[in-house]
């Protein structure tokens, strides 16, 4: 099982994502100007400020060369995880529904948040129990999840709302407390908090984030049907 971690100019969490992925499998970085996904079984679009977040967060990265390959990979069913800026890139690329808007408090906010697992039968949460709480840090200024009401209802009915901020934890004003969503097919997932920063008790105070990477490994290896 090999993870490919994208690296854009302005990415800043790709090394932690690489470390997190290597705790459950092989992993290597893929530079944004590459087209070759190097035979990876899953792709991680990491956090940071790709292309300086010019125009809108993720708006430029979405047209990068590597993203053309990622979009093709996703359309063939390949697993794609977007974290923070990566989530924004996947929304801009329309691989995920909705958009991320400036936090309601207009501030860059960095805090540990509790997330509730609303769907435990996905390729990204199958190592979690339904209703389990994951303690994961979040750090962003554009994390307010938005989609129109009809889209939200459809997503809810289809089980696409995978992670929610637990009661009292929704600091950015996301609609329906949404922290992480999947696409209809279930092979693309994005979340604003950073699972790659919560893989070691010593450094993150929690290993809740590791379960996202473990889930992906289980999905790729067919442990999760």
């Amino acid at each position, binding site marked *: 099982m090999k993870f490919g971690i994208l690296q854009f100019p302005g990415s800043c969490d790709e090394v932690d994502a690489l470390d997190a992925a290597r705790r459950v499998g092989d992993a290597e970085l893929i530079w944004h100007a590459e087209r070759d996904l190097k035979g990876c079984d899953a792709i991680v679009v990491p956090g940071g400020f790709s292309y300086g977040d010019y*125009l*809108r967060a993720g*708006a430029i990265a979405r*047209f990068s060369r590597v993203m053309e390959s990622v979009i093709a990979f996703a359309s063939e069913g390949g697993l794609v995880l977007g974290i923070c800026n990566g989530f924004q890139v996947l929304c*801009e690329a329309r691989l995920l529904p*909705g*958009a991320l*808007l*400036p*936090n*309601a*408090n*207009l501030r860059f906010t960095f805090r540990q948040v509790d997330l509730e697992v609303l769907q435990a039968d996905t390729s990204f949460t199958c190592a979690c129990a339904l209703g389990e709480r994951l303690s994961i840090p979040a750090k962003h200024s554009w994390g*307010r999840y*938005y*989609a*129109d009401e009809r889209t939200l209802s459809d997503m809810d009915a289809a089980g696409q709302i995978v992670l929610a901020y637990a009661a009292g934890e929704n600091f950015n*004003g996301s609609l329906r407390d949404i922290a992480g969503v999947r696409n209809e097919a279930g092979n693309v997932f994005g979340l604003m908090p950073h699972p790659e920063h919560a893989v070691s008790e010593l450094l993150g105070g929690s290993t809740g984030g590791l379960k996202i990477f473990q889930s992906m490994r289980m999905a790729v290896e067919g442990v999760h049907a």
Partner: protein
Amino acid sequence: MRARVLIRPKAGILDPQGVAVERALPALGFAGAANVHVGRLVELDVEDPTQLEPMCERLLANPLVEDYEVQLLDGSS
């Protein structure tokens, strides 16, 4: 041809920048300002103005959350 694109948050979507500005104005003694919204302005020279709308749809704006308005400017460069 010189063109100007105005990009605004869609009506009904919380615009915290607009709210912050609206709250700041009375503190400076400007009373009576309401419904403040903050958007973006893109100005550009284009050879083919029919490309402006697809540019907006694909890159300049995010049509899910933003409205855009294209203006063609007279006296173009």
